[in-house]
């Protein structure tokens, strides 16, 4: 394996090995650029993954201390575990379900399209759908997204069949199982899906795309990547010309190291990315590195989520097969008449019995609750993934009084939901109840997602430097060789799952970096 010296200042250092970091690395390496990648978690083999919800949670989840505040469910039910992200090589591409949908054209200009929304900090993206389209194409081909570019569809399962038929009967017409980064048959050195039903726990056969089994080995094959796992980035260093010069990190033995760098890309997910920049504050950057605007850590967004489950007279067996096998897109657009800005997707989604017991009704107990769980074999499930309004007050900040294992202040994640989130949930539940009743459901239950799996904002891109942290390429408005490469860049969440957009933005960023390096501008 390639090794670079700690004092080699010609390398690009990438913090994080998930969708953003690994996609930048793969593109740079294939352009002949040397990369050192730091990943806080261990490098696991897919054979080590667990088809057991509890064991997989323990194995994959980022469990370092965090706090939650505000009016969101995590502050109430999981105040020390508000996010569901992964600490391992591959990042959250290990537990994602492969849903790979493009943002809609209007979602790149939410302020223009929705108009001003009171209590929200909307801005338009500094790039258009057309500008990102070629990168979406590249990302879909590289990830093997089903139903795109001539790739076959994955087979549909029982849970999808229920949602599909119910949706048709209530008049929905845009229902599809296309757009999933799971192999229908063997492709790209990985096998076809066996419909095992544990997408969320790390796919043991690698039919599902992740950076662990695709981008990272592809980058390593170039001989240009050194991946250092179990290395936690602690601080970025800079000089008095506002250039980043290196990364201080704790290696797998807990020893502090300094890797010099020509350029740094940060992709630690929307909490760890701003946290690293806050922890890199200096006399020149007293409020965090590159935080001239004061927007660092702010405008944190999740997607607005909800779960709906229905009980039928005949078996469904929702756990068999792909966890999220397809979605209804008829509510994805913006329609001011519904009482909220933006739209949502209705995704068929299954949970195993242990997880369902926790999310059906957090804190739940009693005869009624138990009786619904006992219907497990007869249940169908759906998940809402909807646009969440950004708010300046929703933010990641540091709690100086509470230190982590490295002696650094732990992050607090504050969310006071915009009232539109609850309006959207109400709309979703009315629609999904109607869908399931149309195919004979006898009972409908609203479930609650607690921790946030989709995390965005906190270093948002903006045309005007005072409104964000980075430009449309993810480059810091202040520091020319500092990039943000993950979902932290998003100015708005859209209604679609974030990974495909993270990968497309990362490829665009990497092309931009490579072109500048060739021109000797970086």
């Amino acid at each position, binding site marked *: 394996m390639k090794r670079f010296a700690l004092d080699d200042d010609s390398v690009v250092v990438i913090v994080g090995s998930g969708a953003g970091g690994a996609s930048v690395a793969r593109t740079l390496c294939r352009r002949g650029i040397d990369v050192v990648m730091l990943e806080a978690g261990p490098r696991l083999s897919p054979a080590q993954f667990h088809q057991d919800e509890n064991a997989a949670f323990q194995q994959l989840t980022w469990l370092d201390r965090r706090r939650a505040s505000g009016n969101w469910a995590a502050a109430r039910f*999981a105040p020390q575990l508000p996010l569901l992200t992964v600490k391992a090589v591959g990042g959250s591409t290990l537990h994602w379900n492969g849903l790979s949908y493009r943002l809609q054209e209007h979602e790149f200009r939410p302020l223009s399209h929705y108009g001003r929304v009171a209590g929200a900090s909307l801005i338009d993206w500094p790039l258009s759908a057309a500008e990102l389209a070629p990168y979406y194409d590249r990302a879909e081909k590289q990830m093997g997204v089903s139903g795109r570019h001539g790739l076959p569809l994955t087979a549909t399962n029982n849970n999808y069949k229920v949602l599909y038929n119910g949706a048709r009967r209530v008049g929905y017409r845009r*229902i599809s199982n296309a757009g999933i980064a799971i192999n229908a048959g063997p492709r790209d050195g990985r096998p076809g899906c066996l419909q095992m*039903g544990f997408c969320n726990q790390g796919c043991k056969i690698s039919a599902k795309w992740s950076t662990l089994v695709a981008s990272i080995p592809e980058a390593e094959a170039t001989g240009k990547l050194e991946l250092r796992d179990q290395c936690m980035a602690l601080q970025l260093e800079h000089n008095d010309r506002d250039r980043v010069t290196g990364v201080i990190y704790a290696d797998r033995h807990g020893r502090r190291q300094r890797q010099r760098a020509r350029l740094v890309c940060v992709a630690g997910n929307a909490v760890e990315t701003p946290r690293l920049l806050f922890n890199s504050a200096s006399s020149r950057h007293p409020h965090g590195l590159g935080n001239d605007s004061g927007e660092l850590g702010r405008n944190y967004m999740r997607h607005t989520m909800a779960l709906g489950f229905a009980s039928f007279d005949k078996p469904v067996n929702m*756990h068999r097969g792909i966890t999220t096998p397809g979605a209804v*897109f008829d509510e994805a657009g913006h329609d001011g008449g519904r009482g909220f800005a933006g739209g949502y997707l209705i995704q068929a989604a299954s949970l195993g019995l242990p*997880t369902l017991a*926790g999310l059906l009704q957090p804190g739940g*107990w009693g005869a009624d609750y138990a009786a619904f769980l006992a219907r497990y*074999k007869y249940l169908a499930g759906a998940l809402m993934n909807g646009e969440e309004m950004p708010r300046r007050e929703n933010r990641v900040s540091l709690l100086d009084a509470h230190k982590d294992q490295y002696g650094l202040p732990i992050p607090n994640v504050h969310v006071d939901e915009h009232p539109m989130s609850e309006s959207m949930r109400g709309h979703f539940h009315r629609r999904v109840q109607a869908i399931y009743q149309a195919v004979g459901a006898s009972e409908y239950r609203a479930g609650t997602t607690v921790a946030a799996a989709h995390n965005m904002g906190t270093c948002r891109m903006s045309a005007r430097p005072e409104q964000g942290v980075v430009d449309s390429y993810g480059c810091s408005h202040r520091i020319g060789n500092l990039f943000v490469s993950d979902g932290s860049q998003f100015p708005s969440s859209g209604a679609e799952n974030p990974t495909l957009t993270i990968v497309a933005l990362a490829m665009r960023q990497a092309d931009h970096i490579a072109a500048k390096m060739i021109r000797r501008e970086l």
Partner: protein
Amino acid sequence: MRSMHKRRRLLLKLMLAAGLLAAGAAVSPAVPAAAPAAALTRDQLRTLAALVADLFPHAALDQSHYQNVVAALTRLLGDAGQRRLIIAGLAQLDGAAGRRWRERAPAQRLARLKQLESAAFFQLLRYHSMQALYSDPAVWALYGYQGESLSKGGYLQRGFNDLDWLPEPGVEAGQ
């Protein structure tokens, strides 16, 4: 080893504080291994079993399923703070009315549990009972959750699309 132990303790505290679950994943009961079986009296154990059945009543389950849960709960006693909480909680259930918990009428027990819902011992026992009960393969078997599937080749040849009471989905553009 030490850091693993610390991690477990942390997780335990998380769950204590939270009573919780995260989107798409369950937290497993991470409890100290040492389980002093004799730490509870026979009466206390019977009250505990009755409480678990009150919280998650299932006609299809028998004593053995609930005993598995009680066994998981007794492992919580390895932590001194939790031990105090549980023993005081059981005393509260048994003591107040002069009659033992399990001898009181079901409606009376239910009303009392509703009052106790926010008590720390209630939340601790509710959370770990839920975790243990619905993570038990013997319970899964009764309700149709099939667990691990790779060893049997997934469901590709075993019914992932065997639902026969609705038509097959068509192929549409979607997005």
